[in-house]
């Protein structure tokens, strides 16, 4: 892996930023420690000096100048001794181990920090903390303490700071690189994987580590996206396959009919007949085309922006009302029931069409097999079957249920129709579930709902379950005259 690439990673940049923050933090902490230490040392020195002065001034009071000078000479001979100087009132040195001092030092009260020169040392800078004490008789006693100790401590602390910062930088950089490399490895793996999937086989999926960390979750979402794309692609493919099949068959008939007429028709009547046939075929083509287009659009989620809140009960009643004479004509009892105030958010038109398709199917195919109704049969005295259409609330959902007493759909076919809803071919090969059912499924999905095919024992029961509208509104201005719940 190229190092440059590693440096460009977000993880590495974050590591660097973190490192900078840690370095500043460490500096502050060590600085504070150093500052405190210095103060502590200064305080200790001051105390030592004060104790010394008290002791020496006592000795002076008891034994006079000679005793003081003796003690100081004894003390200054010891290695690492403090600084001592005894002078006359005029400042002439009498005893001590200080060679030169700034002249005004003896006139300053309290603890003073000053430069000084010890005996036998001409170069170098020596600094000391000192205090001047005036003895009886006007003599000055100066007691001091070299600050080299504090300075060396500062030096040690400074070095420690530098060393630790250096280590921090080294470890931080290496750690950052290591973490970046680890993350980059996984991201690169995901990228490579994704590229391979995008470039080639869309059925491939990212390998997940199963740790559930953020990269895994990213991978999961990516896989979910791929899943969705695959479904859309499959839908597109199936739709185009179906278009090819459903449209080419009538197109072939249309073309053959026209060809045949051009080749062999003799009389105007024959031409007229051929043209009428061609018109019928084109009409059928348009119908299929419209149905396929509606399904494709609903599947693609088109028309979502035009969604409104509408009353599901009125949809059920309107559609029931629309089909009621058809049911009566076929001798089927149509029972419509709708709970009031069932609000859905979506397309009233599409919901109506979906329910109409289900009802259409139920009325066409949902009669008991023995009845064997013809399409134009006169109204029968006793119903040949019963079809129920209802809209009801079920938890947070609104359900449209269309149930009949017909032959139903075998269980394994039922699953097939649902799972592979876009396989119009399969759906159409079963009675009662043609393009209409596919559209109903697409409409249910568009509304984030589902369509289920159940056994009505006997018969078929199709349930469109749609999530109810979150907020209930006043019904929109009724476009239809209110209908009694049960049609006559």
């Amino acid at each position: 892996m190229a190092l440059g690439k590693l440096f460009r990673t977000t993880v590495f940049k974050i590591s660097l930023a973190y490192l900078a923050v840690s370095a500043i933090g460490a500096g502050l902490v060590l600085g504070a420690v150093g500052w405190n230490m210095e103060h502590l040392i200064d305080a200790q020195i001051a105390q030592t000096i004060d104790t010394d002065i008290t002791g020496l001034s006592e000795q002076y009071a008891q034994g006079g100048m000679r005793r003081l000078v003796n003690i100081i000479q004894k003390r200054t001979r010891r290695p690492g001794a403090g600084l001592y100087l005894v002078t006359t009132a005029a400042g002439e040195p009498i005893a001590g181990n200080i060679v030169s001092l700034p002249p005004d030092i003896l006139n300053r009260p309290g603890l003073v920090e000053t430069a000084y020169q010890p005996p036998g040392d001409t170069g170098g800078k020596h600094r000391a903390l000192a205090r001047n004490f005036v003895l009886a008789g006007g003599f000055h006693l100066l007691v001091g303490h070299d600050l080299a100790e504090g300075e060396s401590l500062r030096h040690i602390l400074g070095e420690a700071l530098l060393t630790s910062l250096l280590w921090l930088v080294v470890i931080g950089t290496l750690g950052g690189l290591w973490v970046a490399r680890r993350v980059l490895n996984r991201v690169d793996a995901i990228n490579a994987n994704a590229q391979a999937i995008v470039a080639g086989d869309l059925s491939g999926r990212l390998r997940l580590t199963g740790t559930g960390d953020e990269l895994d979750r990213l991978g999961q979402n990516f896989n979910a996206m791929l899943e969705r794309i695959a479904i859309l692609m499959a839908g597109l493919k199936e739709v185009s396959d179906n278009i090819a099949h459903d449209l080419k068959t009538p197109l072939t008939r249309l073309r053959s009919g026209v060809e045949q007429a051009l080749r062999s028709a003799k009389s105007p009547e024959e031409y007229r007949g051929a043209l009428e046939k061609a018109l019928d075929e084109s009409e059928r083509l348009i119908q299929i085309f419209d149905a396929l287009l509606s399904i494709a659009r609903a599947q693609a989620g088109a028309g979502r922006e035009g969604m409104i809140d509408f009353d599901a009960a009125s949809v059920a009643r309107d559609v029931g009302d629309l089909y009621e004479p058809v049911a009566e004509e076929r001798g089927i009892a149509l029972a419509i029931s709708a709970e009031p105030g069932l609000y859905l958010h979506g397309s009233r038109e599409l919901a109506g069409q979906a329910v109409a398709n289900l009802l259409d199917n139920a009325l066409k195919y949902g009669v008991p097999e023995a009845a064997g109704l013809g399409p134009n049969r006169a109204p029968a005295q006793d119903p040949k079957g019963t079809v129920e259409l209802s809209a009801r609330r079920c938890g947070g959902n609104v359900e449209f249920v269309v149930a009949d007493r017909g032959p139903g759909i075998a269980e394994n076919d039922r699953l097939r129709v649902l799972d592979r809803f876009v396989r119009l071919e399969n759906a159409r090969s079963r009675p009662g579930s043609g393009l209409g059912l596919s559209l109903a499924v697409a409409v249910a999905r568009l509304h984030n709902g589902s369509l289920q095919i159940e056994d009505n024992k006997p018969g078929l029961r199709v349930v469109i379950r749609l999530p109810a509208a979150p907020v209930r509104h006043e019904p929109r201005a009724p476009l239809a005259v209110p209908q009694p719940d049960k049609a006559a």
Partner: protein
Amino acid sequence: MSLMRILIVEDDSEAAYYMVKAFREAGHVADYVGDGLDGYARARDETYDVLIVDRMLPKLDGLSLIGSLRAQKILTPVLILSALGQVDDRVKGLRAGGDDYLAKPYAFSELLARVEVLARRNRPGLGEETVFRVNGLELDRLAHRLTRDGKEIQLQPREFRLLEYLMKHADQVVTRTMLLENVWDYHFDPQTNVIDVHISRLRAKIDKGFDPPLLQTIRGAGYMIRDGSR
């Protein structure tokens, strides 16, 4: 239907040619222009009963054309023709100022019926009537009452609306989709011809036992309430 002056704004010259020919055969005057700007100029400067406007036009698209006309207070009824036939497209078209919307491909009988209804709509005095009368059949919208030759006929609410629409457009062809749109407010194409069944049921109530039959089927087009004695 009396003579109508129709302006067709359509960029497909062949489709326009068929339309012009068919409208002339139906006894109307039809002009044709091929782009939106010409269409706007003609509609502004001349008087037409109905404009037929394609949605996708060169130079000025159909919806903008309608918007410009409406901004100029030119309220000639407009029928929008479009390959986009979905509900939301229709809503957009009507919102832009169109009066009716027909998706391509269409049957000419459908187009003719709609154009005739639009042309009639703009004539004064229509739409305010509360009682419709056709040869002894009398429908009172406000009283919700229907009589024929003085005898009261009971209709279900939906049948009443169906008949009301037919009688409002008496002597005009009304297609199945027009009925579905105006009486049920749905625009889809039912797989079964449900409207036919409603009509035959209505016919049984208003024509059975009376003479002449008023509710007539116009073959290949739709239905019409017509004074059969004429």
